């Protein structure tokens, strides 16, 4: 299964992924219309710096997802294609923030006005099935590929400089 994988050394912290994520989650779906929407669309990917490296952080859709286990409303669940989301589940998100507390990566946030938790929901794929943040990345720091393919690439790169 394909996942959003990060080549951390390539991230220039341009924040294009954040912008594209917000636009993909707006009602108009275009940048120019999104900037004037109310409420403002929220991004679900965050570029932070560790001092020497820039890291785009978003939901990893963990196989053992703590947020699903912690959700007492029964909202957070895993869909057939593996996406972890609190939308369209058997329960309705009540904004209790249990998922926020247990997520080890801090990639679940709140929409305070609506009292719901907001996270990467993969409701942003283009026709080729590529997420908006990956499409927007100008340097290829973000890739949407099979996990094992990523590790093959990584091994090859390691061997090349060995």
């Amino acid at each position, binding site marked *: 299964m394909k996942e959003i994988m990060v080549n951390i050394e390539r991230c220039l912290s341009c924040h294009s992924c954040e912008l594209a994520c917000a636009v993909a989650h707006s009602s108009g779906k275009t*940048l120019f219309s999104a900037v004037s929407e109310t409420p403002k669309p929220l991004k679900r990917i965050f570029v932070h710096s560790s001092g020497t490296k820039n890291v785009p952080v978003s939901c990893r859709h963990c196989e053992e997802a703590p947020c699903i286990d912690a959700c007492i409303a029964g909202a957070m669940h895993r869909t057939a294609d593996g996406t972890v989301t609190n939308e369209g589940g058997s329960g309705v998100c009540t904004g209790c923030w249990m998922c926020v507390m247990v997520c080890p990566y801090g990639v679940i946030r709140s929409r305070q006005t609506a009292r719901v938790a907001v996270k990467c929901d993969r409701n942003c794929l283009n026709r080729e099935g590529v997420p908006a943040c990956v499409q927007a990345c100008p340097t290829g720091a973000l890739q949407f590929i099979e996990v094992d393919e990523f590790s093959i690439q990584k091994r090859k790169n390691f061997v090349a400089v060995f």
Partner: protein
Amino acid sequence: MSEKSIDQATLKMLSKAKADNVSLAWDRLAAQEPQCGFGQLGVCCRNCNMGPCRVDPFGDGPSEGVCGATADTIVARNLVRAIAAGAASHSDHGRGIASTLYASAKGHAPDYPVKDEVKLKALAKEFGIAVEDRTSQEIALEVAETVLDEFGTRKGSLQFVNRVPLKRKEIWDKLGITPRGIDREVVECMHRTHIGVDNDYVSLILQGMRTALSDGWGGSIVATEISDILFGTPQPIKGSCNLGVLQADQVNIILHGHEPTLSDILVHAARAPELLAAAKEKGASGINVCGMCCTGNEILMRHGVPLAGNFLQQELAIVTGAVEAMVVDIQCIMPSLPQVAACYHTKVISTSPKAKFPGAEHIPFDEHNAMEVAEKIVLAAVENFSNRRPERVNIPSDRMDYMAGFSVEAILSALGGSLDPLLNAIKSGAIKGIVGVVGCNNPKYKHDQSHINFVNELIKNNVLVVATGCAAIACGKYGLLLPEAAKNAGDGLRAVCEALKIPPVLHMGSCVDISRIMTVAAAIANALGVDISDLPLAGAAPEWMSEKAVSIGTYVVSSGIFTILGTVPPVLGSKNVAELLTSGAEGVVGAVFAVEEDPVAAADLAVKHIEKKRLALGLEP
């Protein structure tokens, strides 16, 4: 391919480029996509080294830069810097032409005699320079010195401001945006947008307007007026355009860029018998000099030189494989040209000390021995003819005839020496109004489509179109510059065009020649005793892309003319700036910008605006 252009010659050359494995602007655009959203919204500031700073348009991140600049400040600063760059470019072009007049009057530029003495004297009178009992050389020297002084004048305001109606001058004075000196306004833009100076978006935009006005009523008029004096004032002239003007059996030279200083001489040089003989010796039947972009417009307006195409066709001309030399001066010349030329035999020859292109041959142009340089360039092209590879040549057959050369003087002459017939046609409603259609091409939009659909809608609605730059070239390619095109116009406009034997779209020149349009607008307003903003006029740049276009749009709006942009400017990151430009400016300068990507809807906006202005003047809508 068909989504890239409506022009058949362009489509054919796009296919050839693909087969020849040549990368073009459209391919490079695809490689840029998706383009940076912060840049598109104008909310990125690189004006100091505490940055770069970005404001988050979704309110999710920083709302100000390190210095505290908000989105309003950053967007306004970026806009003002774009205006400054555009105004500087037009004005530096004007300065170059004025310097040539000065050199000519000093006797240092023998190839540039004064060609239009009537215009020289008229301009001298406008500047209060004595003309009686003086030689044209004496007058030219004083005119050149006085005009060059306009760039750094200390006398309060620019001379050409006196062309505008009193009401308009009062508006500018009250707002404090009357341009004081051409260079001064550009410099002040750079000063104000430096870290820690002006950070009030209204104040910044007012300075942007003042700077744009120094372009429209300063640098651009200088370029137009002095070019007319040195190279002749354009008169209606016939010719043909599009890539089909290239000749399979001749040495093809394309003159591309914006300044007529070298190109005008080059047109003459290519007619020299010894160069023609050299071309014959190489097996060519002649030398075919063609224009492209505004250098092309300058020489077509004055010599009927064929026009090979507009901005997005510059690479495609080389792709024909039939161009021996592409001679470039300044502005809108793609740095890719030497790279494209490397796939064929074409020589790219740069000539301006202001513009070098890695990979191009540089033959420095010198106005003091212009003909010598021009002959050297033509000879280089002739010698390159034997390197042409016939298997790489494919000239599309598409070409179209045109009638161009509608300077203000030519329009007056077509009207029988006075504006009255035009005013009467507007009053009677035969012509509802006038729209200036100008500007570039932009590969983000289907090449030429917006220009042509917009213009066709306007003329159907009895709106007379005046055009310059790449928009005018687009009109030429689709036959809209022919008197016969009047058959597609509404009944009123058609009758006027048929009576005067003029096309429904008047080609008024290059992009600096938008000053001609402004001069006509001011003259109409003066004749009616109203302000420019009262007239049934509109401006439009359906496919604009350059900073010069930002300056032009701003001086047109600041002069009181409603202006429609077909491509979105980078201002939407600030709601306040966007609102000021699209609605707030109405109460300040009597005109606003509108952005409309759909050309038919844009034409509707223009027509409705014209109807509104007609009603206010007491005319039938």
